[in-house]
């Protein structure tokens, strides 16, 4: 790891101020991704802005028909939140499936969504639930936020402060995990709100998380595993790597979607 200067602001506003003033700085949330990346010298920021003391970026609250989660809220806290478990159990379950207990004690929702790892879990929930990413300067709809591998709509120095999740009628997440890394080989988040069905797939796309339009249409007509009968997923644009090839991932998308739908309707 190369040397860097260290800043520890105690509010989101101060964090943004520091980011505006200093050159080549990065926000440090749980550090579960950023620190390993810096050790490998794949990132070498001149400065780190540690968000761990920004208490205004932590916490979970109900606002109207939305569950609003502070960016610095850890996976552990989302997984164990009474509010999330009651209103969006699929989201609490997803958070409980991330990595291992020690990772969940540190990693944050803001860090995961800012990083947009193509195999991360949260991006599928953000996209399928139609969440809104709230930053220090604007609100970004999930459909406009994810821009590809590790790419998002965030600008230089822009800070995610909260993420607002509309409460769905039914939702579930199914993940086929890599047994070593615990990341998703394929993860599918299914959400139904009113007549609207959204299906978001992580781990599979060579361009990161995406919505499965064909499955959404079929499930809008019939929100049951049967509604997907006869449908297959094309391997075009899916990842092939040492863990799974594109055809296998395409097949997993169908299987995980069926399982997620089954789980969503049996709650």
């Amino acid at each position, binding site marked *: 790891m190369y040397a860097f200067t260290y800043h520890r602001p105690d509010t989101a506003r101060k964090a943004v101020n520091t980011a505006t003033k200093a050159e080549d700085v990065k926000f440090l949330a749980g*550090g579960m991704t950023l620190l390993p990346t810096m050790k490998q010298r794949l990132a070498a920021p001149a400065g780190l802005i540690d968000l761990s003391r920004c208490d205004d970026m932590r916490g979970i609250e109900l606002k109207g028909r939305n569950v609003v989660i502070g960016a610095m809220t850890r996976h552990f806290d989302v997984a164990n939140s009474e509010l999330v478990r009651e209103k969006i159990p699929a989201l609490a379950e997803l958070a409980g499936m991330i990595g*291992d207990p020690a990772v969940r004690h540190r990693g944050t929702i803001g860090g995961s969504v800012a990083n947009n790892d193509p195999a991360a879990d949260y991006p599928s929930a953000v996209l399928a639930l139609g969440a809104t990413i709230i930053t220090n300067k604007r609100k970004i709809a999930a459909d406009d936020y994810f821009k590809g591998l590790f790419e998002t709509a965030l600008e230089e120095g822009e800070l995610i402060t909260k993420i607002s999740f509309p409460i769905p009628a039914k939702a579930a997440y199914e993940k086929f995990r890599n047994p070593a890394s615990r990341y998703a080989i394929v993860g599918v988040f299914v959400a139904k709100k009113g007549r609207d069905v959204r299906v978001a797939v992580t781990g599979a796309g060579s361009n990161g998380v995406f919505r499965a339009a064909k499955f959404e249409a079929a499930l809008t007509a019939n929100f049951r595993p049967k509604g997907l009968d006869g449908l297959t997923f094309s391997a075009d644009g899916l990842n092939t790597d040492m863990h799974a090839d594109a055809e296998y991932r395409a097949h997993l998308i169908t299987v995980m979607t069926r399982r997620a739908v089954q789980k969503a309707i049996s709650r």
Partner: protein
Amino acid sequence: MPKVSMTVNGQPVSANVDPRTLLVQFLRENLSLTGTHVGCDTSQCGCCVVHVNGEALKSCTALAISLEGAQVTTIEGLAQDGKLHPMQEAFRENHGLQCGFCTPGMIMTAVDMVRRSGGDLDEKTIRHELEGNICRCTGYHNIVKAIAAGAAAMAPAAE
């Protein structure tokens, strides 16, 4: 170099550190607490697990300076008055280690597991909770047995 202060195994400690100093380096190199191991240095293996403010974390993936004011417990802090902690005793009794390299992390993870899930742990829960800890020797079987026994032995003490 900025100064960092924390409490480690009940003792207040402080030092001037380069901001890139990892918690595990701080423990091993500044404090000579070499019971906490570095297996992978990439957050995968769990050899470096310690408790920070009562919760398990991987000390190879935390900056020491970030933990200003924290309460840290390492494997050296578990035994009390020359008597092994029940979880340590259970690992000894059940032959839950071979080379012992992963053991400090296994035990710290196991104690955290009991804190969160109580003393009555079934095999499935234990294996699931051990996802972040890798052992190259034992095949896990005796580790799982040791944790179940250690958890049961800890139960009366846990409130």
